[in-house]
């Protein structure tokens, strides 16, 4: 099957007879980027295209990319908001390196995105927005749609605003409301271009504007007008078919990482048969977890929007102290503020889940962009010897499993556990095969209700010999009144202790307890190309959201004759039990991550093996080609 890019320009430049039936070409996959001003509704347009594509049965991955400002000055490059979707009739691992199709609703969108569009790709431009003032605003001396600067591309020039107004001229909508519907026209064109059904979007419009018939009619009318425009215009002589991707049987939904975490937390609370408190403070890109869970008040999940990051972490600790599950969600700057409280949970040996949806740092950094540069902060960013559990989700859907895992480890080991995700998978989405609820494993949050010794007092630091988790009694249990706190504790009795030997014992014991998690986490499985002759001497390692890009890079390298084995680390502290042995089996180890080498540092420090770094720190996910090229350069 030919690639979209190889046929798009030639096929789309064919002329057809008016009113003759258009033909269709099948392609395997395509990447589209919707792009426009922050107020143009591009996130919504991308979201609707994604849902329809998911329902049709393509595999897909998305990348929303929007500015930190809610409404940057209209028409400027800083205000451009984009949404990229990569969909295919075969398996998809990333949101796509470079778009085949760019929808550019204004000159700023073209200016910001043109360099990414594959030569030979398609640019759909709303010509109405290419006014002199909009062009001047971004520094175009003349209209790029009218000179020869875009000769490399197939440019589809559509007066989208005019056509939208025309479609809505019979309605009672104001000019402003008509203008705001233009994204539906653009969506309609792309739906025709890739043979998508309108039905899910019509249903969604009816739900969203329920009771506002004028808006329902206007949006559906515009959507259909866009679709019919595609069908009839001579600018698009053919359209494209992307067949269903093979997928396991079951029920699917499209899901972002933040949604998956929210559902995972609800599931975890049920599996642990325990109430849960999500105590948090608004921060990009983690806030959606709060927004989602705040809606689930009938699931015995409580949410608490605290006065600051510190209070959020402390309230979560208070919830754990009450014998319920304390969770706090944040991003890098919030983790910095929570660090003292995390150590309180650590020394008092209370469960605490810290969700770090990483963004570009340091300081305020790049709030809406993605990065993996909090790993060492999670591992070491606190005073004293401070071992905590660290796990990382590898995709949007995997956030569901990892939220359950984080809760399980935190409550069963009475310890702080970090769940690392990042802006890419938090806001990006993919199809998710729904788990069977009855298959999910119960979480054992056992609380002590009886005295555990012959002494007069209950011993809060007596431990389970397997996990080293302490026996935990909580307020309201008669006869087990006791005191805990941030001062060093004598093992077993929990009394304050300044005994030097006890402090060393407790420091080692807290580390050993985290290490004991190794027995309760899965071992690593090496991933290898089906074509591979056997074990490679090369290994590419990664963690978190880079899984898709590394997987595609491994496949691409194999196509070029370079076999590389792949390990994706989902449990970072402790590392899985077989990790060290596996590392020693390779001559060349590449660690790919969106920072300057933090997992590489951890691995070298822990195992004294030499690794090669494959890094990117641009606020954007890896392109497959970037991993491929960096590995080749170091081989």
């Amino acid at each position: 099957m030919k690639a979209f890019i190889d046929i798009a320009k030639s096929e789309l430049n064919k002329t057809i007879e008016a009113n003759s039936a258009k033909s269709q070409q099948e392609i395997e996959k395509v990447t589209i980027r919707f792009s426009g001003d922050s107020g143009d509704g591009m996130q919504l347009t991308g979201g609707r295209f994604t849902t329809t594509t998911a329902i049709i049965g393509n595999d897909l991955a998305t990348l929303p990319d929007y500015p930190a400002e809610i409404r940057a000055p209209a028409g400027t490059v800083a205000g451009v908001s984009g949404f990229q979707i990569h969909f295919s009739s075969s398996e998809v691992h990333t949101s796509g390196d470079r778009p085949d199709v760019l929808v550019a609703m204004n000159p700023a969108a073209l200016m910001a995105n043109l360099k990414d569009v594959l030569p030979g790709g398609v640019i759909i431009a709303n010509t109405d927005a290419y006014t002199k003032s909009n062009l001047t605003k971004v520094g175009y001396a003349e209209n790029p749609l009218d000179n020869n600067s875009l000769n490399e591309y197939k440019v589809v020039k559509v007066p989208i605003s005019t056509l939208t107004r025309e479609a809505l001229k019979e309605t009672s909508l104001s000019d402003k409301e008509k203008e705001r519907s233009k994204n539906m026209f653009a969506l309609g064109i792309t739906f025709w271009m890739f043979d998508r059904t309108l039905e899910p979007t019509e249903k969604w419009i009816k739900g969203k504007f329920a009771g506002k018939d004028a808006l329902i009619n206007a949006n559906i009318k515009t959507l259909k007008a866009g679709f019919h425009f595609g069908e009839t215009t001579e600018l698009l002589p053919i359209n494209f078919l992307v067949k269903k991707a093979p997928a396991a049987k079951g029920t699917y939904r499209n899901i972002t990482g933040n949604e998956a975490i929210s559902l995972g937390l609800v599931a975890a609370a049920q599996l642990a048969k325990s109430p849960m408190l999500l105590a948090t403070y608004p921060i990009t890109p983690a806030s959606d977890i709060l927004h989602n869970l705040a809606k689930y008040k009938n699931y015995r999940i409580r949410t608490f929007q605290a006065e600051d990051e510190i209070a959020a972490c402390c309230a979560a600790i208070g919830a754990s102290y009450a014998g319920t599950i304390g969770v706090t969600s944040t991003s890098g700057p919030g983790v910095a503020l929570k660090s003292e409280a995390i150590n309180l949970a650590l020394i008092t040996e209370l469960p605490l889940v810290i969700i770090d949806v990483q963004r570009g740092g340091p300081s305020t950094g790049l709030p809406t962009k993605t990065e993996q540069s909090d790993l060492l902060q999670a591992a070491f960013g606190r005073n004293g010897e401070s071992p905590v559990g660290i796990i990382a989700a590898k995709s949007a859907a995997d956030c569901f499993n990892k939220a359950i895992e984080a809760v399980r480890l935190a409550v069963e080991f009475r310890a702080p556990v970090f769940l690392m995700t990042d802006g890419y998978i938090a806001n990006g989405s993919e199809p998710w095969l729904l788990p069977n609820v009855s298959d999910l494993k119960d979480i054992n949050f056992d609380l002590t209700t009886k005295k555990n010794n012959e002494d007069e007092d209950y011993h809060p630091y007596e431990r389970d010999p397997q996990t080293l988790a302490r026996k935990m009694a909580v307020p309201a249990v008669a006869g087990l009144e006791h005191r805990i706190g941030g001062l060093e504790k004598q093992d077993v009795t929990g009394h304050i202790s300044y005994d030097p030997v006890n402090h060393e014992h407790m420091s080692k014991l807290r580390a050993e307890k985290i290490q004991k998690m190794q027995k309760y986490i899965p071992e690593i499985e090496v991933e290898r190309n089906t074509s591979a002759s056997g074990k490679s001497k090369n290994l590419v390692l990664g963690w978190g959201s880079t899984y898709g890009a590394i997987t595609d890079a491994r496949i691409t390298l194999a196509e070029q004759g370079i076999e590389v084995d792949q390990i994706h680390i989902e449990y970072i502290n402790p590392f899985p039990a077989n990790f060290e042995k596996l590392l020693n089996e390779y001559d060349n180890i590449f660690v790919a991550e969106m920072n300057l080498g933090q997992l590489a540092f951890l691995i070298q420090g822990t195992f004294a093996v030499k690794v090669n770094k494959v890094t990117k720190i641009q606020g954007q996910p890896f392109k497959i080609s970037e991993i491929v090229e960096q590995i080749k350069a170091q081989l």
Partner: protein
Amino acid sequence: MSATLEKETPQYTKKDFVSNQDVRWCPGCGDYSILTAMQKAMPEMGRRKEEFAIVSGIGCSSRFPYYMNTYGFHTIHGRAPAIATGLKVMNPNLSVWVITGDGDGFSIGGNHMIHAVRRNIGLNIMLFNNAIYGLTKGQASPTSKPGTITKSTPYGSLDNAFEPVPLVISAQVTFAARSADVLLKHLQKTLVQADKHQGTTFIEILQNCHIFNDGVFKNVLDKKIRTDKIIELEHGKQMIFGAKSEKALVLDRDTLSLKTVLIESVDEKDILVHDTTTEDPTMHNLLARLNEPVAMGIIRQLNHKSYEQLLHEQENDVIAQKGEGDLEKLLTSGEIWQV
């Protein structure tokens, strides 16, 4: 949540609330009498011992939970109200006490303090106010008066001082009281009253640090002059004080301030009657800011729903509308498809 509520409450005495830990405050510290007041007050609260949880921050006062034979959590500097909030939200049946000092509660923890108060969450906050940092050995605190000479302010402190009660009144507190380490009986009674209140209670306790700020409240609390320097307020009672109950407070309408007068020299109807329940905080602020006499007792008490009551109601409303949450249904909500 607490099955223990069904059980009969034993008749406790002070010693039931004494822990097995040695008390390590400096000999003569005002904290000792506050500890005694608490250990005597708790048996009067009619609750089972296991329902009490005492949460503290960092500072001399914050060692308090170790000396109480109840559930106790000695946390980190300034954060006790936030930790206690999580505890109370998840188990509203507990009687949760926050022990804090002027540094812990109004400097490093000032933000948590005002927000806990604003939410009206059911915490009883005891502020041990000695106007000095004791545990770090004598620096100016946010309640030290300007000009105070300390180790960190050898030429006198330049900062203005917070007035804790007016500050929490501004933060919408529904119960504000003041007492002192030397007023043991009065303090004990105030603590029992606080436990009965729904929502946040704030009790400022004037406390002497005789190592680093000895006599800071001597001009008010010295036994010889005390009756003339403080007024014990009671809801519904006339504002009368003095060794022979010869003085009263009246409102000076020209300056909108309180004025001390001799009872014999005023019309009986001009003597102010204390009303803790007025929503308008003007009079409570005047009382709280009074330097002579210093107002003691419950200054303000409003009957508002607590945060945890509102939360409970909201949850019940949502459950009534949507039914008990079903995980299977939640997972399959939204746009799904079958393969």
